[in-house]
């Protein structure tokens, strides 16, 4: 989103949008806290439940502070030089220059949000993503290592991913005109702005010349956009930025840490599935803020994202239940809840792009595939991804990201693709082909896998050789609640 403290005269903030985005932000907070904390907390053994809750709590608090110190700035400002497509700058570190009148662009021309609203909305995304990883290394990682790992991962995997996929100049930046000078300056800098305007004036009424000026202006604006955004990668609310990113980190952590003591020997059944159900419900409700909030407006577009979120979730829960009923004779609540989360994950990148019937297909696919991932992949490769972060978020994110490329097609009831990089952002992209878009989506997915994989691996090594990765066996047996936090959940 383009941030401009001096928004153009035409720019307007609608209080309905602001109201919705304030609520959407609160909803995403609720997803993490208490939603995710409870979802994960119920799944571990009772001696470790507080450790999970504490890790989620501390993660949330730490990232929230880091977000205003430098995170927001690195993700959502123009970077400099060759790094611009990959990471922003420190220009808004400490939120400098932002005040109650600052505005942030949305996807619609001349429609803005108070920048503080955009900051808090995106903050909640930054907070939940690292927290997702906690499920993978639950029940055995040192608390100090958790903090250090998440700190490193946030800086080097989350922030670049968010910048690459979501950062762009905003629709009004593409309007080259004297009236829109503030946006033009913000997009390409003061001197270049004057330059382009002069060239435009010079072009007079010569259509070819105008087109050439506008095209080179567009290129200049795009130069600072995120790399994957410019490619046209579709990720409405965070399939790659959030879920694949976190899922892969979880897998790497699980591999680096090794298995929990007693795995496959002692029963490790979830200690309280009612707690997990509460978490599931709050995740579900909060996710409406996450997905429909990503429309950035209180509009029909937000409503369709909302509808698709319900449908994808419902289809995935039913699919997972059906899969279990067929293969295990029983459909379990944990299965349905896992399916629901898998559906939520998969519909995340898709929700604003596909149609309702597409959402049902995406959800059903995610339900089946994630069930298979959890039941088959883990035993096959023998890693101990304690709460299936990779199986549900990693795999679910991939399913969703790829299927978005297919079901976005208007032929399949999708919303079609808008060409945000053109002057007229209301036109949909002419040259959409399913295979072409799939390849773009695949690049998005691969980028997340590689970046998160490498960063996680290095972060684990750093933890290992500084604070140490795992607690000792005696502490693990006693449970992290007592050994790491000095308290017990139930008395």
């Amino acid at each position, binding site marked *: 989103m383009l941030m401009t403290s001096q928004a153009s005269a035409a720019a307007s903030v609608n209080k309905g949008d602001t109201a919705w985005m304030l609520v959407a932000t609160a909803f995403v907070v609720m997803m993490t806290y208490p939603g995710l904390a409870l979802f994960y907390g119920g799944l571990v053994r009772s001696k470790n439940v507080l450790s999970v809750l504490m890790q989620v709590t501390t993660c949330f608090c730490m990232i929230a502070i880091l977000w205003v110190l430098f995170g927001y700035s690195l993700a959502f400002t123009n970077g400099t030089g060759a790094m611009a497509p990959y990471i922003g700058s420190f220009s808004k570190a400490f939120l400098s220059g932002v005040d109650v009148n600052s505005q942030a662009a949305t996807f619609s021309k001349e429609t803005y949000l108070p920048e503080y609203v955009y900051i808090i909305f995106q903050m909640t995304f930054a907070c939940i993503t690292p927290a997702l990883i906690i499920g993978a290394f639950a029940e055995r990682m040192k608390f100090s290592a958790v903090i250090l790992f998440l700190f490193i991962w946030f800086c080097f995997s989350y922030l670049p991913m968010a910048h690459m996929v979501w950062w762009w100049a905003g629709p009004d930046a593409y309007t080259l005109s004297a009236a829109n000078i503030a946006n033009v300056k913000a997009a390409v800098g003061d001197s270049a702005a004057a330059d382009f305007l002069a060239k435009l004036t010079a072009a007079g009424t010569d259509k070819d010349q105008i087109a050439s000026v506008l095209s080179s202006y567009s290129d200049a604006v795009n130069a600072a956009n995120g790399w994957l955004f410019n490619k046209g990668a579709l990720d409405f609310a965070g399939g790659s930025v959030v879920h694949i990113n976190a899922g892969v980190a979880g897998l790497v952590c699980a591999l680096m840490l090794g298995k929990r003591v007693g795995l496959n020997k002692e*029963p490790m059944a*979830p200690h309280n599935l009612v707690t997990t159900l509460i978490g599931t419900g709050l995740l579900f409700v909060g996710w409406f803020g996450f997905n429909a909030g990503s429309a950035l407006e209180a509009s029909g577009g937000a409503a369709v994202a909302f509808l698709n979120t319900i449908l994808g979730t419902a289809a995935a829960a039913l699919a997972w239940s059906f899969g*279990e009923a067929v293969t*295990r004779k029983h459909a379990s609540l944990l*299965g349905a809840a896992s399916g629901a989360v898998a559906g939520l994950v998969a519909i995340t990148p898709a929700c604003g792009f596909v149609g309702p019937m597409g959402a049902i297909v995406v959800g059903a696919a995610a339900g089946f595939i994630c069930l298979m991932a959890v*039941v088959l992949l883990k*035993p096959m490769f023998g890693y101990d991804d304690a709460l299936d972060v990779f*199986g549900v978020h990693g795999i679910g994110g991939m399913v969703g990201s790829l299927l978005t490329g297919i079901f976005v097609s208007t032929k399949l009831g999708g919303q079609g693709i808008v060409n945000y990089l053109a002057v007229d952002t209301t036109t949909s992209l002419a040259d959409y082909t399913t295979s072409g878009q799939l390849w773009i989506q695949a690049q998005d997915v691969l980028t997340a896998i590689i970046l998160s994989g490498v960063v996680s691996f290095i972060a684990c090594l750093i933890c290992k050789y500084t604070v140490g990765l795992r607690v000792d066996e005696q502490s693990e047996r006693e449970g992290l609640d007592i050994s790491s936090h000095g308290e017990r959940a139930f008395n």
Partner: protein
Amino acid sequence: MKYIIAIIKPFKLEEVRDALGALGVQGITVTEVRGHGRQRGHTEFYRGAEYAVSFVPKVKIEIAVEASQAAKVVEAISAAAKTGQIGDGKVFVLPLDEAYRVRTGEQGVAAL
């Protein structure tokens, strides 16, 4: 004196207590336990993991009685706890050397 330990199905507790009440036995101590025997447990499934749970919820009853009453008590428990199906449980009779009532300091049979 005898110390009787009975393992029964949880839903039979009220009936057993009533049967003992009818005999005039008032003092009972009850514990929730899990039992393993001929009665098979069940299989549980949590995402990827399948567990064969071999323990079944049971209730353990402990009653200290005069030796002469033991037979009647065992009989009452057996009758009340019986469903005729596997897992109905066991009654064990152990020797009891001494008994004290904390409140009064009474001892022996008087303390039961």
